């Protein structure tokens, strides 16, 4: 008679464990797929040349170094611009004006998370690019700066929601204790809420970084896609993602096409490295509550 509830538990356990293994397996399979299809390059010993050389198929150069720099530049600048903005908005929503403007902002941010990326790209082409061109006087306006600004706008809504949720989940007892000890709202924010919301802030950062590194449309439409390594913020640049989108129409058997799998591998490694680093930072630098 006791056997039935136990086997139901085991069934549920098995299903969930399988789901976990399946999703982990898929992630590893993608890595394997790219490694296997990019094998001709690894086998010919061209990997180093590919990672550090320029891109010029006419001269048999299939290096993706300019694209690596492009991705790093646009993603980092986008994050640097987005994090203070998102943190500020989240603090406004949860602490400064939770019942007035903050509530309205929260609803608007919810809406923004649903906007497709290509809309941002479109708006960027017609509004942001001419603005950047006029402000700086030279250059076409298609540059790292334009792409980073629009990217910051793209990744902010998700980050804001994560940050706001993290701040909201701080136990009321802590907040009341801080107030009882005479803490002002700002002191409460800095000494109680932010340290406790660290996990959510980190999760939001990881998600935003993944999206920034992996975004294709904004980089394709706003960054210019030049093959030369960018030297300044106003230079046209190409990211790994835009590169894949542009070269994918090439002949399947060519070395050009194979280089795309190396691009995919690099993107994969970037995101994994960033995620692992941030998680390591949590365990080493923050005490567990």
């Amino acid at each position, binding site marked *: 008679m006791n056997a039935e509830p136990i086997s139901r538990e085991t069934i549920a356990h098995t299903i969930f464990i399988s789901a976990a293994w399946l999703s982990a397996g898929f992630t590893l399979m993608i890595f394997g797929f790219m490694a296997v299809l990019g094998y001709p390059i690894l086998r010919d010993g061209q990997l180093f040349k590919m990672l550090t050389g320029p891109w010029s198929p006419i001269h048999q150069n299939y290096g993706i170094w300019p694209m690596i720099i492009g991705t790093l530049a646009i993603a980092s600048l986008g994050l640097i611009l987005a994090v203070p903005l998102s943190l500020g908005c989240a603090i406004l929503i949860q602490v400064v004006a939770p019942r007035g403007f903050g509530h309205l902002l929260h609803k608007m941010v919810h809406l923004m998370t649903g906007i497709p990326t290509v809309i941002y790209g479109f708006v960027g082409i*017609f509004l942001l690019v001419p603005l950047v061109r006029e402000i700086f006087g030279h250059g*076409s306006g298609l540059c790292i700066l334009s792409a980073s600004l629009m990217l910051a706008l793209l990744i902010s809504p998700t980050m804001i929601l994560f940050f706001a949720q993290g701040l909201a989940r701080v136990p009321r007892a802590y907040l009341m204790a801080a107030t009882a000890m005479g803490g002002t709202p700002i002191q409460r924010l800095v000494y109680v809420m932010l340290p406790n919301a660290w996990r959510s802030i980190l999760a939001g950062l990881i998600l935003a970084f993944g999206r920034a590194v992996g975004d294709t449309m904004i980089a394709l439409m706003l960054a210019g896609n030049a*093959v030369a390594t960018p030297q300044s913020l106003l230079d*046209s640049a*190409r990211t790994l993602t835009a590169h894949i989108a542009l*070269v994918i129409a090439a*002949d399947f058997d060519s070395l050009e096409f194979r280089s795309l799998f190396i691009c995919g591998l690099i993107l994969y490694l970037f995101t994994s490295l960033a995620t692992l680093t941030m998680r390591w930072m949590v365990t080493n630098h923050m005490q567990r509550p």
Partner: protein
Amino acid sequence: MKKHTARIGLLTIALIACIATQGRASALDTFKNETGTIKISGGTAHIPAMKAAAERIMSANPNIQISIAGGGSGVGIKQVGEGLVDIGNSGRTPSDKEVQKYGLNMFKWAIDGVGVVVNPQNAVKAVTSDQLKAIFAGKITNWQQVGGANKDIDLYTRDEASGTREVFWKKALNKGDINPKANVVPSNGAMKTAVASDPYAIGFVSVGHIDATVTPVALDGVIPTLDTVKQGTYKVARGLFSNTKGSPTGLTAKFINYMLSPEGQQIAAQKGFIPVK
């Protein structure tokens, strides 16, 4: 009497409708009782037009299967020569060696011209070949050097898989270098948008795509228009060819005739090419 008038009226309308619809579908009628497959491969520029034609044929007669693959002009010529496909598309004439080796028959059904365009606000309306090469190589960097305002030239080029870029590079630039700092856009449409919104831009588009939002630039005195390309006075153009091994027969011959028929030529024009007829 009224009853009869109504019936006669309806019959007349039905009869006219039958005659009218038959007249419209005449080009597709040759495919009516056929079955079989047509395998096509080769140039990517041909694909949109071929796909449109294939869709019309296959919906008129579901017993016909037409498969279209890319691969480029070289692949198309090789595959049709080796008998792997029925029709091999190429964006260039097969060389004499290839014609001899494979015994190819060539059919040109469209011309694809590529013209240089600038923003309508730009004062520069004509350049020479040497100036064009220097601009795209990055040696001439200011519009003042070719008679325009004192502003940097913003270069726009296409991605490497683009047939439009290939024609431009081979025939207008004579295989010269393209500045690696040039902005790369992914399509003819994107190129038009970029040039139309940047007053100091220079780029190139398929002649069939040129409209009022961009200004064509005369190259060595010849303005790129549908007419100058058709007449041959504007040299930066290539023919779109469909090649077959030996004389085409059966379904293959009918497909090629369809591409050369008024309906097929209309499809080519719709896709931005210049019809040969």
